[in-house]
């Protein structure tokens, strides 16, 4: 009986069943994913962490050659009032030789003010070079002691394991010597 029925609808029963299996399994996977995603996403930054905060900094008291650190969103921001020699040194470097090519001009809004996030792009330590006695590395900028990354006077990575230049925060000059970060 079953045998004689087969030629009439060759694979009919099987394909319908396969389709039902696949559809049911596919739906199950989708449904599970839809439930798992909120669980995973709950570990992402929450609304109050995301709430943008901005920091205002008065640059007036920062003397030429002085470096100060301010805090924005829990991160240290390095502000460097660069002397002309540091600017010249940064601009004299052939850009294509750099691990993360970027000109000095691309990294500043005003040449004498270099403003960057003071977190090593390797594994997140705070590089040395802000305090007067600190080591500044082989290129006169910053030196990360954790695994030996050297940054130059434009905050660009020159030597060591860090892959990127120091990141730049979003900021703008609200006056000649005042900035708003964030």
């Amino acid at each position: 009986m079953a045998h004689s029925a087969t030629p009439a609808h060759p694979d009919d029963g099987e394909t319908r069943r396969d389709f039902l299996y696949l559809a049911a399994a596919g739906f199950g996977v989708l449904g599970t994913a839809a439930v798992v995603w909120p669980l995973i996403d709950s570990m992402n930054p929450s609304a109050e962490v995301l709430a943008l905060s901005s920091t205002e900094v008065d640059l007036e008291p920062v003397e030429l050659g002085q470096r100060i650190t301010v805090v924005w969103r829990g991160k240290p921001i390095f502000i460097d009032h660069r002397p002309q020699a540091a600017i010249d040194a940064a601009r004299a470097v052939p850009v294509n030789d750099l691990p993360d090519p970027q000109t000095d001009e691309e990294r500043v809004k005003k040449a004498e003010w270099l403003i960057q996030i003071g977190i090593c792009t390797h594994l997140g330590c705070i590089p040395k070079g802000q305090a007067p006695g600190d080591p500044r590395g082989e290129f006169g900028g910053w030196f990360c002691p954790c695994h030996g990354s050297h940054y130059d006077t434009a905050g660009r990575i020159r030597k060591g394991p860090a892959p990127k230049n120091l990141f730049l925060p979003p900021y703008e000059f609200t006056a000649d010597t005042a900035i708003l970060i964030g």
Partner: protein
Amino acid sequence: MSGLKTNNPVIRWIEYRLPIFSFIDHAVGSGYPTPRNLNYWWNFGSLAGLALVIMILTGIMLAMQYTAHVAFAFDSVERIMRDVNSGWLIRYIHMNGGSFFFIVVYIHLFRGLYYGSYKAPRELLWILGVVILLLMMATAFMGYVLPWGQMSFWGATVITNLFSAIPLIGESIVTWLWGGFAVANPTLNRFYALHYLLPFVIVGAVVLHIWALHRFGSNNPLGIEANGPQDKIPFHPYYTAKDAFGVGVFLLFFAAVVFFAPNFFGEPDNYIPANPLSTPAHIVPEWYFLPYYATLRAIPDKLLGVIAMFGSILILFVLPWIDRSPVRSAKFRPIYKQFFWIFLADCILLGYIGAKPPEGMFLIIGRIATAYYFLHFVIVFVLSYVERPRPLPSSIGEAVLKGGGAPAPAAAREKA
């Protein structure tokens, strides 16, 4: 097993309805037949189990006093140290218990490397062991963050940042791990939850590990299969007594450190509260992570460094298929035996380098030692084809009773 013999009516009543006693007896049963020639290196499995129990007991007591919040964590640990009854003792046991757990497990692991315990049919047993090692590392890493000192904070920062090396999605993963834009309160909270959870996952992995062990029984210093009753003795009382003696010796060392040098393995910087704006001049992980840390720093590229670091452990998973020599024990593998000791020395050297600043000579030695670490596995692969093993004894019973097959230095080591 079904051979459970007891006249106790309560046990028989329960056993009939829920065969739990035969289940336990089967899993950790005293009648378990064991090769008669196990040496003291076989004590470290039961010691690891003891260490896990110690960690869970003291951990639960600490959890009753600890506060997982960045504003209170450091002080709550200081309160445990000063005000909680016996708090200092419980914390010092937990703190040093972590170190001793790793000492014991590392010895256990190198025992397996020396005697070829990872070879067929014990591949899954070995793989489960590596899984346990990875879980232990995650647990210990997150535990170290809890007291929220400077090393806690910067260790957490550096290690979580490892994931930023992953192309494209790396940064998102790190933000997700942190629950913010830096290591902060959400990070501490979830690390605490996971630090509480993972030891129980380890317990689960240990159950599987022992299940797999009991399928074929322990390997032994000769590395040949035990056949028949003349090769085996019951676990109880022979190895229960020997393990108990090992526990005594272990506790002697453990107590010496807990009571007389509780901060020997620690870093003084971790008694400084975490400061997100200042990295200590010299950050080092706990000693048991130093070899991997040296591997990470040896390679001047971020992604490759991270790959090498994880690879140094992951390669252990495939070791049973890298080493193709049918002879298990290094006793009968004259060349492998020498490379085993060189490999052990290389791992210790990497640990030493990991504690040093990554510059000058240290960096160069670190690179050579890292390269050698991976080269070792190539050597092991080649050796399995070119080495001529020494003749194996025909049975454990014969080797033990006639004193044949066990060369003098190995016998001396067994007594050590």
